[in-house]
């Protein structure tokens, strides 16, 4: 049982969702974050003030999956999020100690999707 964290470009978020649904990974959370990788800074000018944006908008996926589904999930994230340019994002995989489905009280493998894998 692992927690897969994927940080991707906002404009690729829908492609990622589509890729995840296709391989039946349907339990996930998504949040908007700001971050900095290696990409070039955007320069913006507002009247006399010029700034470079060191943080760029990203979307973060948190996906808890059973061990068998870790590779599938990673492949889906890569397929959906890759453009080939700097700034495509990162994936982190963490061990997961416990998971509980609040509605039923089911724990661990029974609580993460896909169920029964």
């Amino acid at each position, binding site marked *: 049982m692992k927690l897969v964290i994927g940080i991707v470009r906002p404009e690729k978020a829908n492609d990622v969702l589509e890729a995840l649904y296709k391989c039946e990974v349907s339990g996930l959370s998504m949040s908007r974050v700001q971050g900095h990788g290696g990409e070039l800074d955007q320069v913006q000018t507002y009247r006399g003030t010029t700034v*470079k944006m060191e943080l760029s908008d990203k979307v973060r996926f948190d996906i808890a999956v059973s061990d068998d589904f870790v590779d599938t999930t990673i492949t889906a994230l890569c397929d959906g999020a890759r453009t080939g340019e700097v700034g495509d994002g990162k994936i982190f995989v963490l061990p997961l100690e416990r998971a509980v489905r609040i509605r039923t009280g089911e724990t661990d493998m029974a609580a993460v999707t896909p169920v029964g894998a």
Partner: protein
Amino acid sequence: MPETINTGDTAWTLMSAALVMFMTIGLGVFYAGLVRAKNSLNTFMMCVAALAVVTVSWSLIGYSLAFGDGSGFIGNFDYVALKDVGFEPYGEQTVPHMVFFVFQATFCILTAALVSGAVVERMRFLPYLGFIALWSILIYPVMAHWVFGGGFLQENGTLDFAGGVPVEMGSGFTALAAAIVVGRRMDYGRRAPLLPHSTPLVLLGAGILWFGWFGFNGGSGIGTNQNGVLAFVNTLLTPAVCLLTWFMLDLIRGRKVTAVGAATAIIVGCVGITPAGGFVSPGWAMALGVIVAIPSYLLIVWRPRTRVDETLDVLAAHGLAGFVGILFIGFVAQADWNGISDGLLYGESALLGDQALAALVAPLYAFGATFVLLKLMSFGFRLRVTEREEAIGLDVTQHGEEAYISGEGAILIEPHESDQRGQRVLAGEAAV
């Protein structure tokens, strides 16, 4: 002022010009709300740019091509760079010629801005400026000449009160051609939803447009005459009934009345009454609210199912509604109300033919000429942003700004800290 000038007429026409000018800003608000947040500034700027580009092109040449004597097809160069556009009235009018000029200028500006709705979220900004400059010289003035400047439709007897031909059918069918030549957005028709980012902005923009439309239609009598007053009143009636009809259609289709639908209905109603405003009775204006809503509603529901990404439905809201409005005059015009001509229902069949001719030639010219113009431009210029720029959004890639900026992570480049120290020294000296 020359003696033929009527001050009341002049005052109202001046006010109307200001109202129509503000419609372009209202349109910017409306369009900005309808697109995604990352493209909202660029979309708004396309309307603002029309104020800059078209004011110049119209003053230098467009106005002369529309209102110079010329032929049945196009004007001439009599008024190039506003030569002889002074205080003496144009033709039989009772306002100074320059007042008529500025009123007409606001129409051309608004129409050019309307067209941007077809190409938002993917067209590069500089080619867009070039396009509206050429369009406001080669295409709009021709159609304006046909119905307002002594062209063949006007001679023929076609009635178009405030611009069903050049503004509404002109923008609508131009938009269709532009959407086809520029091509659809890369996310169009895929899973990614392309939703309005701010519905309150959409409603606010539609409200500003409706408000401005009282000058657009109500001012098109070029004075406070009967036709102008009738058009002013009808500009409240038709959109209100259209709005109500749209509520019904929304209820039938989805069991809920939608806000974006309401904003659209306001535009459709205003467009429908634009050509007919000064020619049909208030009762028929209300009936038009029902009649104009239905075809536009159906086209708006159907269009996203096609491969044509005419993004903000200029064709449905303007082209089709203008087409309906122009034909409607041919049926229900009443000489009792407009002092000019009766329609088919009041015993005069000739008018309907004149209206049908306008409804045929305006779409053909607007679509055909725009298609050729943009195709020719596309050989010399790249009209679209790259896929990568489209993904990031046009606000950042075209303008280097964002609509909704938090400021987090922004590092100051200019002014330098040293600049500010310099200012402090200066301020200190001044204090001493």
